[in-house]
């Protein structure tokens, strides 16, 4: 078993990552996560990354080994939807105490695993390591191994304590855990030439369900989605898929690549955000499946479906065009790919005045330039203060971003629409884009924005008076 350190190195050395490949030997060793700046605000830790990547597996008991903080603050805070088990939404933690820190928490962990199995009988338990338990030297891998033997159920250690790095690294370590302990451990009842995996899709706000009907119509089966609305066994037998689509490029690239290596499952990187992207992704899926032996007619059936759906979606978007024409949009996205949304917004008549490229690859950036022109306003990670200044200066009509930027937008009096994980509307696929445009229209025309942008009426009067005086 590789040590945590080796695993982290291995993850950093990701050959399928174009960014990584562009680096020298020395740089690569340093790793791909940016060094954190002490004192500066930063995002989530590796534990958080691992947890959010795996928590959408619905029927597993997710047991956090650590003090209350780690599970207490993050319990059930993502909108990953389930069509079946709700166990993933129950918060399990060993909630270790001072005495555990002194004497070690392994026994408590072992007992907790036993209790969770007795009470809930899940197909598997995922045990998450955290900073404190890692520091005091609890060997969760050993405990999980012992528990697996004793209880006869897969007890999976997720060794990504917060201090090893940032959220993105945690995503990848979670992927490693799946590769090491889960994928390939079970067999599906039947396989078809139309089985695919979708990797890096979390079914936030039920987005997977907007894509599934399209795949169903084409006769394509999602063998496993990693990890949105997934069951343990689906992930366990996902190695029998014929092809894979990797959705969120930077989070689970190691899973897609290693599954290609080990099980010959070709994959492509695609997105279900945006109309052209959804079409492109459907095409790619069909192409890969046909390459792998599916019947040729899948390609023409796919084209037919794309034509029908695109026509319907553009019509849907067009309905809002009159009210959206010329509106300026600022995009600040995390996981959702900027460029894939850009074209849909442009079709709605809107102008994109700037977009973040924090998690975008060079290829993504090229695409943005292609769509928005050479002088596209792109920016990397941003401090709230800079964001505030930028919002003030660029005079956009609306900002699309994750929840964390919401309050910056509001203070700068800018309409705002949530397009990240806590959102309540699903924006994936064809219907999703129409929904997005509809939501933008709603947000833009909410009367509070006129209110927000006006100073208190007495302040206007005062400034008018003083302006008049100055003149």
């Amino acid at each position, binding site marked *: 078993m590789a040590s945590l350190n080796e695993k982290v190195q291995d993850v950093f050395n990701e050959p399928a990552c174009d960014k990584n490949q562009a680096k020298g030997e020395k740089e690569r060793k340093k790793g791909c996560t940016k060094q954190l700046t002490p004192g500066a605000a930063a995002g989530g830790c590796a534990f958080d990354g691992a947890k959010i990547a795996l928590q959408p597996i619905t029927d597993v008991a997710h047991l956090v080994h650590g003090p209350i903080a780690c599970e207490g603050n993050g319990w*059930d805070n993502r*909108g990953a939807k389930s069509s079946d088990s709700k166990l993933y939404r129950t918060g399990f933690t060993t909630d270790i105490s001072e005495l555990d820190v002194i004497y070690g928490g392994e026994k408590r962990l072992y007992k907790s695993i036993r209790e969770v199995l007795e009470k809930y009988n899940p197909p598997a338990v995922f045990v998450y390591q955290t900073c404190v338990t890692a520091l005091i030297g609890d060997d969760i891998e050993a405990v999980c191994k012992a528990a697996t033997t004793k209880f006869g159920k897969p007890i999976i250690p997720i060794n990504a304590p917060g201090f090893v790095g940032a959220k993105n690294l945690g995503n990848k370590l979670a992927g490693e855990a799946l590769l090491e302990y889960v994928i390939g451990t079970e067999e599906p009842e039947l396989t078809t030439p139309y089985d695919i995996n979708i990797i890096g899709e979390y079914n936030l706000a*039920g987005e997977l369900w907007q894509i599934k009907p399209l795949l169903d119509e084409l006769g394509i089966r999602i063998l496993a989605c990693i990890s949105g609305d997934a069951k343990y066994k689906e992930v366990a037998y996902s190695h029998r898929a014929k092809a894979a689509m990797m959705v969120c490029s930077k989070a689970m690239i190691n899973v897609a690549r290693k599954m290609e290596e080990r099980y010959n499952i070709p994959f492509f990187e695609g997105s279900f955000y945006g109309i052209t992207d959804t079409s492109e992704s459907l095409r790619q899926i069909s192409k890969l499946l046909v390459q792998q032996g599916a019947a040729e007619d899948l390609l023409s059936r796919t084209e037919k479906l794309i034509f029908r759906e695109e026509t319907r979606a553009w019509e849907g978007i067009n309905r809002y065009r009159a009210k959206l024409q010329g509106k300026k949009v600022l995009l600040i996205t995390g996981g959702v790919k900027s460029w894939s949304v850009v074209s849909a917004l442009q079709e709605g008549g809107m102008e994109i005045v700037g977009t973040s490229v924090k998690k975008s690859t060079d290829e993504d950036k090229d695409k943005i330039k292609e769509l928005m022109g050479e002088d596209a306003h792109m920016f990397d990670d941003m401090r709230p203060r800079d964001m505030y200044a930028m919002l003030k200066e660029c005079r956009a009509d609306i900002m699309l971003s994750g929840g964390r930027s919401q309050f910056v937008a509001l203070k700068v009096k800018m309409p705002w629409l949530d397009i990240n994980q806590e959102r309540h509307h699903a924006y994936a696929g064809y219907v999703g884009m129409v929904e997005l445009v509809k939501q933008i229209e*709603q947000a833009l*025309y*909410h*009367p*509070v924005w006129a*209110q927000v942008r006006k100073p208190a009426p*007495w302040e206007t009067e005062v400034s008018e008076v003083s302006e008049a005086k100055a003149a």
Partner: protein
Amino acid sequence: MSQSAEKVLDHFKLFREPEYKEMFAKKKAEFEYPVPNEALQHTIEWTKSTEYRDKNFAREALTVNPAKACQPLGAVFAANGFEGTLPFVHGSQGCVAYYRSHFSRHFKEPTSCVSSSMTEDAAVFGGLNNMIDGLANSYSLYKPKMIAVSTTCMAEVIGDDLNAFIKTSKEKGSVPEAFDVPFAHTPAFVGSHITGYDNALHGVLKHFWDGKAGTTEPLKRVENESVNFIGGFDGYVVGNNREIKRIFNEFGIKHTMLCDPSDAWDTPTDGEFRMYDGGTSLEDAANALHAKATITMQTISTEKTAKFIEEHGQEVVKLHHPVGVGGTDKFIMELSRITGVAIPDSITKERGRLVDAIADSSAHIHGKKFALYGDPDLMLGLTGFLLELGAEPVTVLSTNGDKDWAAKVQALFDASPFGANCKVYPKRDLWHLRSLLFTDPVDFLIGNTYGKYLDRDTKTPLIRIGFPIFDRHHKHRYPVWGYQGAMNVLVTILDKIFDVMDADTDGIGTTDYSFDIIR
């Protein structure tokens, strides 16, 4: 028997026991001669139809579930707002028992109020003797500083003359000559509780300003820097008046709360029973004549009083129960204008916080459809706020709102894109509203406690804003005026929206995929 001395079941549980269920079923089958179930269902469905609505709206005489109360109720409200004042209703005592219980159920406080207990002989020979005895008894029993007289229908029908009766009573020594006994005729067959409030308040001001029914010289107005504030008939008076006083103090403006029952309807539990507490002092009521201006928060509820004040040379700022940003802006700016005091930064900040809160929650109220009913001024204020929130007040109804009121609501609709599909219904009752909730369904209903039947029948979730609120406690303590008051209204609306959202998604294994922690 399921009922036993060991474990006595209350009404929530008792009639769910099998023997009662059986008994009810038998009673229905053998004695009630019920229509067949299909016929019943058919009729129920029929009451939801457009055809039924049209018949319902063609009603000419019958009122079903009126959303208003009677004049003397408002008169008692107004009297209760003055220092040491005993509301005295000339007429039958049953009416007064109603007012007292009505207020107690809303404010969860006792309400001091007496009647002249007229009986049949009084109806025949006139109520003079009841007035003479009544004033004498209440004066010696309850030691008030002032007795404010109003009337029930009984006294009005036989045409008792309050002015003359009170004079005679004083001559007969019921109360001392100089004792203040303002009065107002408040027949329930005219107007509603807001009219009664208006008449009674007018009666008090007229008494002090115009020479106490000819017994003293009328006061001469000498303008000072003070501002009068009149809230109107207001179920939130406890919270509202305190909030308004705070706002006056933020400005540093000298003010008189004309009619302030906020202490009388919120006395502490400290071992002392207060028959009277707080209220506008009689001296202040008299001196209110000299104020620079008067602000009335509910113009329709203070029509006569406002006119009276204007006739005495004061400017009256007339508002319609302002709720929300725009409404409160107007109130605050008028306050600043009439006093010449700049709006304090603290108030500007409160405004910013309200706007921030609205923006934070904008998506959830935006586009939601509402039906609302209640007193006309309140309807104007809430309609304005809902439009501000991007909601559609599709149906606005008032039993005691007239055509002029309807035109004002329509003007609000016309000024907002969200008002395009909205309609106002003056002089309609809750049975009309029931039809409308079926034929023009909305997402939420705003109204008083009586709306719970509409909620049950039409499955339109009720947001309780109005008077009376009997089935939820302490709402009257939270202001709805000022920016912070608007915040309370916003939260009240949002709470219901989220409760409904949760209830809609809490089906275990069925809908709970959307039962979320974060909303």
